[in-house]
């Protein structure tokens, strides 16, 4: 596998979540130990109360009959991308810039109209909502849209990296969002996958996920190579080829993605300073990840999951968690894993349970896995 021919810098980023509308606001809250997960009672989403990290709670649904109106999904992408682009000098009007959107379900809430009402299927299509977002941001082509379950955010960044590497573009604006509507919540509840408490990644008592809403954006560029920006150094995607909704029993396939990503970055496992895992807090996911981390030679390396702060933000998760990790690398800190109390996986990996200084802060690894058997690993570093 070839090395990146040119370093791809993360020039700028943004997170919009219940914890703030900029990355700085979000990162400060996480450092202070604040979680966005709350108990919600909302009949429109669920007959029972549920824990989640919600942006949309209490917001009226926009009136889409007026031209130029945006759904909340579209507006969050627009706001996040616009904030990330500020001051970068990168323009979406530039033909050398590509816009990439990551989402699993986009405008799916529009399916939830009353029975008998016409369903705006055209607006639910990701290419249609993506085009509206693009046009509002001054991007005069169709955006590239990645919809690959819970690895969408990492795959979208990896795609941006590859399109820049291949010389097709100089910059990539990668933005992602998902909202937790009745559709998504009822689905995970039907799987018995939603915890009755805030999620507890890698913990002995973990019993399921908590869902969350966020939008996030990174601006990637081939420029800035000599400056102090964090770079994407390598990445890989694999498939378990085992089960569409259950993770691998061995973790070998995620370990393979980690191995490929490290190889592309030209790094050995000992050069990784921390791992930001997917850590959804389902019994099977976290067990599989622990095996993969161990197989990849990262048993001694601090591992965290940020799901206890934000819940699982689906198509935004890879972006949100990479951005927070990137800032914690720059801050020479590794964040804890809220909800984790006692070891609950079969491999003795090193779960970060306190905010701790990093002795060395050069590189970190971000992983994710999802339905369909997909796994992704990205290596970021200075």
């Amino acid at each position, binding site marked *: 596998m070839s090395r990146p021919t040119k370093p791809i810098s993360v020039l700028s980023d943004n997170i919009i979540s219940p914890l703030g509308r900029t990355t700085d606001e979000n990162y400060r809250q996480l450092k202070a130990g604040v979680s966005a997960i709350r108990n919600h009672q909302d009949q429109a989403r669920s007959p029972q109360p549920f824990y989640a990290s919600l942006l949309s709670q209490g917001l009226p649904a926009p009136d889409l009959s007026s031209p130029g109106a945006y759904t909340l999904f579209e507006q969050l992408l627009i706001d996040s991308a616009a904030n990330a682009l500020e001051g970068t000098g990168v323009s979406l009007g530039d033909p050398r810039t590509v816009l990439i959107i990551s989402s699993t379900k986009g405008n799916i809430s529009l399916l939830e109209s009353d029975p008998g009402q016409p369903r705006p299927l055209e607006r639910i299509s990701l290419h249609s909502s993506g085009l509206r977002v693009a046009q509002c941001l001054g991007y005069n082509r169709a955006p590239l849209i990645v919809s690959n379950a819970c690895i969408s955010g990492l795959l979208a960044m990896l795609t941006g990296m590859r399109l820049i590497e291949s010389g097709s573009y100089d910059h990539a604006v990668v933005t992602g969002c998902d909202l937790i509507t009745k559709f998504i919540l009822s689905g995970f509840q039907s799987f018995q996958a939603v915890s009755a408490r805030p999620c507890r990644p890698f913990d002995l008592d973990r019993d399921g996920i908590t869902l969350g809403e966020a939008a996030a954006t990174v601006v990637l560029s081939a420029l800035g190579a000599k400056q102090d920006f964090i770079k994407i150094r390598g990445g890989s*995607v694999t498939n378990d080829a085992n089960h569409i909704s259950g993770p691998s029993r061995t973790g070998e*396939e995620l370990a393979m993605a980690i191995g490929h990503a490290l190889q592309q970055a030209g790094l050995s496992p000992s050069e990784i300073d921390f791992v930001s895992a997917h850590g959804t807090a389902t019994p099977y996911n976290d067990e599989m990840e622990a095996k993969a981390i161990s197989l990849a030679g990262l048993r001694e390396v601090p591992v965290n999951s940020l799901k206890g702060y934000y819940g699982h933000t689906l198509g935004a998760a890879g972006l949100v968690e990479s951005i927070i990790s990137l800032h914690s690398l720059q801050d020479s800190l590794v964040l804890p894993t809220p909800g984790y109390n006692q070891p609950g996986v079969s491999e003795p990996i090193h779960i970060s349970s306190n905010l701790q200084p990093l002795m060395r802060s050069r590189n970190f690894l971000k992983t994710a896995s999802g339905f369909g058997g997909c796994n992704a690993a990205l290596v970021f570093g200075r």
Partner: protein
Amino acid sequence: MIHLPDQLYINASSLISQQVVYKDRRPVFSDQGSDLQGFLRSAYQGLQVNYPKFYKMDNLSKLGWLCAEWLLRDHFSGEVYRPQDVGVVLSNANASLDTDIRYFESTRQFASPALFVYTLPNIVIGEICIRHHFQGENAFFIFEHFDANFIEQYVGNLVNNNILQACICGWVDCLGDGYKAALFLVEKKPGPQAMEFTAENILTIYHSDNG
């Protein structure tokens, strides 16, 4: 020094459209007498393989799985590759909306986990990978229309950079009774039916149903 990418080859293609299956641009199966559900079932039976999991899939996965099955018959020898060297890159316009609608209807009575798992477009990639034990790169992209240039560029990159040695790529789309699937087997060495892997050839095959 500029390194020109090597020429890659489409060693097989399969197309399912308007109740006809085409292999390497020749019709190999047809059943005009039924709706999409019935057609997918008879196309499966026409393959004469035993894969009971097929019946659990949603229409999008059945369509993509069948198309891959026809694609890889005859002249694909999977054993020359390691599992991680074969990938699947797919695209469509309607993501999983066909099943999203069915799933959401189910929630009015009892939310069905068996339907919910298919409310992601990349599940069809998972089904193809399980069947053929492919473990390499996979990606699902959404376009309003099939974008042959993107497929040529993205897949070309994966294979030329040795991230993959072979790739199954193309379009699998389904909403209501409207559907189309077109898959391409891309490899480095030309096989007996090889066409050069170019956007032009991809489009010629994609339109060989005159659609």
